[in-house]
């Protein structure tokens, strides 16, 4: 009956199983991996990617892609950090508004270029990826904002909170995840995003305002990238024009693809993406324990993207869609 649904459910369950298996395997070699301290480390690796992945998921579900989130994170972080440095009198929590606001503006530029000129998102965001990174260098004069300028209240958000000593940023990331879930599954606009990705030609015929929805998803992606920017400052304590956000987009895309979001749009689940991020977090945390150099992280992410695509394809082929796909293929 619900063959497709079952396939989907299998996907999330499958990721969960992979996580458990992976942790058990690593734990067998290095028992330290299975401690609460380690869990804390893993969790601390993930909040930024989790937030970014929520935004990217919406973009990809709408049958687009946003390659510029890393540069948006860098730019938003730099703007906020410079504000802290040169105007320390401003209350630190306003930094959140600044970062998110900057992100929204950058996302709007992306969305406007894509909808106004009907340009492929891939190329536009490839362009803005470089544009925003360059702007980051320019406004900061290629200089890093050091630890002493980042408000300690902000930094402590990554260390602790009154609730079980779990850092605030983890709650924030979980909060964003829950919000995205509510948005994607229980709001009309959210369902329109899925509809748009599922059949972009039918969408206008059904009263979906394609331009507005597309702009919206890119602005959300930007907002979340901006949020991840100030969280970067919180987590690492400094902002650097070349490092902050560098390679972020690849980690996020890896998580999203693992999480079962289809490149063709219309399909994706928040739970799946969450599990994908967790899996990547476990893998990243395991690497230093196993003595694998940090340099190989990129390689692993790349391999992970490819493997996830392979799994995606074999799962799809076994689904009900296979017959129609067989006929549709030339």
């Amino acid at each position: 009956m619900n063959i497709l649904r079952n396939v989907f459910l299998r996907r999330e369950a499958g990721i969960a199983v992979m996580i458990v298996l992976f942790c058990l395997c690593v734990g067998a070699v290095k028992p330290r991996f299975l401690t609460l301290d380690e869990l804390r480390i893993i969790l601390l690796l993930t909040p930024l990617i989790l937030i970014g992945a929520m935004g990217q998921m919406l973009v990809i579900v709408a049958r687009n892609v946003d390659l510029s989130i890393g540069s948006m994170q860098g730019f938003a972080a730099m703007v906020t950090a410079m504000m802290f440095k040169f105007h320390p009198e401003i209350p630190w929590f306003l930094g959140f508004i600044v970062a998110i606001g900057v992100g929204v503006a950058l996302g709007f530029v992306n969305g406007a270029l894509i909808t106004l000129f009907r340009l492929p998102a891939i190329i536009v965001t490839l362009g803005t990826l470089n544009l925003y990174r360059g702007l980051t260098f320019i406004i900061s004069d290629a200089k890093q904002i050091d630890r002493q300028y980042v408000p300690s209240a902000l930094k402590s958000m990554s260390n602790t909170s009154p609730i079980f000593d779990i850092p605030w940023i983890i709650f924030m990331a979980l909060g964003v995840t829950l919000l995205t879930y509510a948005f994607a599954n229980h709001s009309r606009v959210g369902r329109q995003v899925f509809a748009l990705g599922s059949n972009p030609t039918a969408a206008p015929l059904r009263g979906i305002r394609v331009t507005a929805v597309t702009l919206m998803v890119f602005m959300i992606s930007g907002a979340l990238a901006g949020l991840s920017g100030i969280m970067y400052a919180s987590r690492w304590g400094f902002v650097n024009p070349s490092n902050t956000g560098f390679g972020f987009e690849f980690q996020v895309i890896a998580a999203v693809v693992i999480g079962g979001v289809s490149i063709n749009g219309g399909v994706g689940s928040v739970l799946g993406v969450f599990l994908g991020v967790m899996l990547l977090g476990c893998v990243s945390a395991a690497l230093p324990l196993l003595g694998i150099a940090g340099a190989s992280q990129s390689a692993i992410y790349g391999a992970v993207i490819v493997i996830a695509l392979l799994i995606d394809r074999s799962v799809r082929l076994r689904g009900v869609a296979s017959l129609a796909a067989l006929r549709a293929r030339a």
Partner: protein
Amino acid sequence: MTTMAEGAKDTPLIAARGISKSFAGIEVLRDIDLDLARGEIHALLGENGAGKSTFAKIIAGVHRPTRGTLALNGAPVEIPSPIVAQKLGITLIHQEPISFPDLSVAENLVLGRSDGSPLGRVPWAKMTRDAKGLMDLLGVKIDVVKPMRGLSIADQQMVEIARALASDSRLIIMDEPTAPLTPKEVETLFDIARRLRDEGRTIVFISHRLEEVRALCDRVTIFRDGAKVQTDTIGNLTDADIIRLMIGRPLREYMKKLGAAIGEVALKVEGLTLPGVFSDINLEVRTGEIVGLGGLVGAGRTDVARAIFGVAPAASGKVTINGKAVVITEPAQAIDLGLAFVPEDRATAGIFRSLPVEQNITAAAPGKIAPNGFIRRAVERTLATDSVRKLRIRLASLRQPIGELSGGNQQKAILARWLLTDPSVLILDEPTRGIDIGVKAEFYDMIGELAAGGRAILLISSELPELLALCDRVLVMSEGRLTANIPRAEATQEAIMSAAVPRSGREAVAA
């Protein structure tokens, strides 16, 4: 269920006056005056390209008329978009239903309805309940929580109808709805249509299937070549009358086949099987012979053709060409062996839309224009010019993009492409679909000449008159199997139709 009282009792629901429509300078509708009454099932009949679909799309807001006026319940009205049409209570159900395949049935029903702004929560529980209610009302068993992707075409149509009901449509236009349906599904559809009519709604039924029109409709309007020929109650017209009005002359005079000498077996297929699509297909085509392959949409005919040609090979079976057993895994091989395939969907699988006509014509014969790898433009030009002359392709220049040509001329160019490969076996898949009547006649002549010239032709067609007129034998497929092999002398529309319908429904077909 709804109040239909608006305007005087006799006021037609829709009154069209002088509706005309041109596309890029080509007039497809001319001065249509037509009334659609409330509480009737009204058929629009006509050949492909006669204008019936275009007219319906104008009423549904998909196209805007170049001239003419529309009135809804006596009041003048403009219908600039499908969304406006929906608000006015007009729904168009396409032949291939539009849906969001990844969303559930319930969501597809609700999306786009003008109730409530996009902001706001999705009332899942209510949505599911309402959707179930609609399905029950239609008497259809569809799980509303399932994604649309898994549904059959018939079920997707039902969902479209449910959408129309949910938005209280007073005019529901169905565009060739029965092509992909089994007779049982057709009966369900007709029952629903009758019930809707009895409630006071209007149904417009576009088709060229006379028996269905006769079974279902109250009045019928016949279109021919962009003009309205006649509107009448169905009881006042015989089938012969209708055909005469549709085509303009009696059927028999319209198409004639040249006699050709039939020789050896050129194409032989044995036990061809692709699980889930078709099974145990056995057929033979001899040189000089035109073998028809009829059946309903979805019976698997195109799949068989694609399997023979190597586009989507079969899982098992034997293919023999001119006496030699072959295994074909890709079209390039098939071409080398003397096969040619004119696909059904020329827009996607046929033409290179933005490339010059010249290149399109020579695309399948690289050996002729570039024997050493370097393209010889003079040779190409000559070959293309020859083809244009022989097939009477009308164009402004060989260098223009083929997308600028009309459908009929594009199809001629595709045929020219395949003729350049000197095939011994030609598989034609719905070659005259969407083509002007005059050009159709040219095609029939060409097909006849090809056979007379010694080629073996397999003609896949859904147009029964075409099969009857051109073919020496008519094979029929149903649900992936061959169900009939009818010689010309015994071939009738009924014989083909009854072999085409699925076995379960065969008793249900009226005598």
